[in-house]
């Protein structure tokens, strides 16, 4: 790599252990100004842990980090110009965009904050990113895409040398992703070194110049992306040869399992949809199109008017009634309303149906068999966990997602609504999850998948609905799937839309 000048940051033999378990060991790489490095690996490989050491959130057990060729005893993000956008967003919803961006270093003299200056700084950062957001808006009023931009603007304020992005695209749709990539190109041109973590190979090739591959915490490869094929990179990560990812979808039946009639609320209007036994129905749309809101309303988590019928019978929209009728809903926001972060993995797995999870002689009493069942689920879902008694917050992002899926699959539901089911999971696990979903459909379960990942929907669904601004604006059968049409339908601004294709 003689073309390079000196690295801005170098990492030598970085290792980290938690209570005796080594999760990262001997990671070594260099970061150069104007270049993007991809950190790739399966769920739990140690990518986020490496990121946390690089930006000073975790102290390495052994190894050194050099900034401009100088060994630093401990990285201080703000001082060394290294900053990160974390896998899980860390914004304050009830504060303004400006407050969030400037939070760690509010401008002003002594005790007085200069709010005008804060707004100016924030607006400059956002303007540089080329997105329109009002610095005075409250963060909770923004969609996930814009929140992600705010998060980046906040990190940029201190990233004079290195910006680390940990799975920044998991909640973005294709259009929003492309916008983000243009921003990253700009940052590279500005002379920043980028570290990019993602499970999407296309993104890695789009954004990055070089890569470091981790497997079980060890560095198993590194080099220039131009010199390695996607296939061999993937095989490096998983440590075996991969078969082609093809799922076989069985033909669905004609028996309706779930029927939604005239469902309306302030977020969506007049929703009518039907899923049949054995069918996988996809719902596509941009962020904020109202897809999650519909799913939550069907499950009884949100106020709405309209009727929901299961197996032809009207069911009151109430979570317990829906669950009793065999419906389940897997949330997209696992940290906010999915996981019990300070409780063990075991309790997180059994939470949705405790009585069915354990063996009991007395109603409501005893947890016999809970551990064994949790162990079964962990191996069945291939969850990488230090121990089932560890808090679920100790798991890597992708493994937390698998815990969510495992919890609901354990309830033996008849109808499953998945909201972003593969958010943050690696390619191998995604393949496994898709196979599981296809297998569930083959046994006659009805399935709805809401996803921002269009290739996923194209791959795994029989039929797709497209939503825009709270309305269903199109329907496609698998035989007529056309990603260009679907994207333009979801994004187009003319009201009214087309009828079923």
């Amino acid at each position, binding site marked *: 790599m003689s073309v390079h000048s000196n690295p801005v940051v170098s990492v030598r033999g970085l290792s980290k252990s938690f*209570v*005796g378990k080594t999760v990262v060991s001997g990671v070594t790489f260099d970061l150069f100004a104007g270049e993007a490095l991809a950190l790739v690996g399966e769920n739990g490989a140690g990518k986020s842990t490496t990121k946390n050491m690089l930006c000073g959130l975790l102290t390495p057990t052994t190894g050194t980090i050099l900034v401009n060729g100088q060994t630093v005893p401990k990285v201080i993000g703000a001082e060394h110009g290294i900053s990160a956008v974390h896998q899980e967003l860390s914004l304050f919803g009830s504060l303004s965009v400006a407050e969030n961006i400037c939070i760690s270093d509010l401008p002003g003299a002594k005790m007085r904050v200069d709010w005008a200056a804060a707004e100016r700084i924030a607006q400059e950062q956002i303007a540089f990113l080329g997105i329109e957001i009002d610095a005075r808006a409250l963060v909770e009023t923004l969609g996930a895409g814009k929140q992600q931009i705010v998060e980046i603007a906040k990190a940029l304020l201190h990233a004079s040398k290195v910006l680390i992005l940990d799975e920044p695209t998991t909640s973005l749709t294709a259009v929003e992703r492309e916008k983000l990539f243009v921003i990253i190109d700009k940052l590279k041109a500005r002379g920043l070194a980028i570290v990019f973590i993602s499970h999407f190979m296309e993104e890695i090739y789009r954004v990055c110049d070089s890569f470091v591959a981790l497997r079980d915490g060890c560095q198993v490869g590194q080099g220039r992306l131009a010199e390695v094929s996607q296939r061999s990179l993937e095989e490096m990560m998983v440590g075996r040869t991969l078969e082609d990812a093809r799922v076989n979808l069985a033909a669905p039946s004609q028996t309706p399992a779930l029927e939604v009639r005239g469902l309306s609320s302030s977020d969506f209007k007049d929703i009518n949809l039907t899923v049949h036994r054995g069918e996988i129905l996809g719902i596509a749309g941009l962020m904020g199109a109202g897809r999650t809101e519909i799913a939550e309303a069907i499950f009884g*988590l949100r106020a709405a008017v309209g009727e929901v019928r299961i197996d032809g019978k009207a069911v009151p929209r109430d*979570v*317990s009634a829906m*669950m009793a009728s065999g419906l389940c*809903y897997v*949330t997209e926001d696992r940290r*906010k*309303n*999915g*996981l*019990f*972060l*300070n*409780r*063990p993995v075991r*309790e997180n797995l059994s*939470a*949705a*149906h*405790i*009585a069915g999870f354990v063996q009991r002689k007395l109603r*409501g*009493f*005893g*947890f016999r068999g809970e551990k064994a069942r949790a162990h079964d689920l962990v191996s069945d879902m291939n969850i990488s966990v*230090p*121990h*089932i*008694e*560890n*808090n679920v917050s100790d798991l890597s992002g992708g493994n937390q997602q698998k815990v969510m899926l495992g*919890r609901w699959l354990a309830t033996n539901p008849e109808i499953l609504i998945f909201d972003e089911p593969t958010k943050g999971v690696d390619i191998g696990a995604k393949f496994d999850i898709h196979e599981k979903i296809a297998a569930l459909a083959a046994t006659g379960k009805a399935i709805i998948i809401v996803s921002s990942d269009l290739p996923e929907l194209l791959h795994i669904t029989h039929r797709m609905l497209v939503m825009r601004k709270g309305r269903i604006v199109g329907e496609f059968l698998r035989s007529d799937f056309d990603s260009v049409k679907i994207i333009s339908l979801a994004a187009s601004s003319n009201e009214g839309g087309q009828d079923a294709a």
Partner: protein
Amino acid sequence: MPRILTLLKTYPALVIVVALAIGFSVLSPHFASSGNIEAMLGANAVVMIAAVGMTVVFLAGGIDLSISTVISASAVISGLAMAATGSVALGAAVAVAVGLGFGALNGVLIGFFQLTPFITTMATQLIARGVAFVMSAGIAVKGTPFWMLDFGFVQWFGIPAVTVISLMIVGLAGVAMTQTTWGRQVMLVGSNVDAARFSGIHVPWVTFSVYLFSGALGGIAGFISIANLGNAIPGVGDTLLLIIIGAVVLGGTGMAGGEGSIGRTVLGVAILAILTNGLNLIGIPFYDQLIIQGVLIFIGTWMATRFGNRRDA
């Protein structure tokens, strides 16, 4: 991980209890005598019972500021009932019923009307205190049945009966929290109320039940206070609130919910009990005691944080 470390992570307050017990045994020959231990256990039965109720509320992510004066109100009303009828059984039933009543009030307002626990139970605290003083005209209720006066000195299996009762409550609550669906749901609601709702747990009912539970324990504690003091005193709970909350937090149950256990609270109560008793025994004047207690509590919480509140395997 070594056994002892696991034990310390589960019960971070254990070190302090052991250190204090050893320290005072060395400083005072009377500390470890059976008479002194009995006195300590008996004197803290009321706090122990109430702290169990508070723990469950904390675990669910709430707080019950009314438990202290619910103790007073149920003591007074129970005392009046016993004075009027002479029936101890009726007195016990009345005490529990009064506790349940206040608990239900809190539970309905917080669980179903979604009022803030802090303000709601603060208001209930005022009401219960008012009730206790109005009904007793501000003085100790006279006419406690003799059986009840004796009961404070009765021993079962060689330990004071009131202690046996408080330990039974500790045991039952421990089993309820660790072995029943209800206990698990309380923990999950405390850990993440949104996730609990999304998992199909009926959060309003769980919340209601938790305040009902602490109300009932407040009632029982009030009844026990009559046995301990010989009379139903309208101000009996007034100074207890901070001791109860302090014991729970010192034991290592967090106020944020989903983190802690009944067992930890037993240790928290033990810390405060040993401190007061030990400092008295070695003849430290009352106000000096306060300073020493404060400093020791600093050290205690620091150690508890050091050993971590996390239950790693």
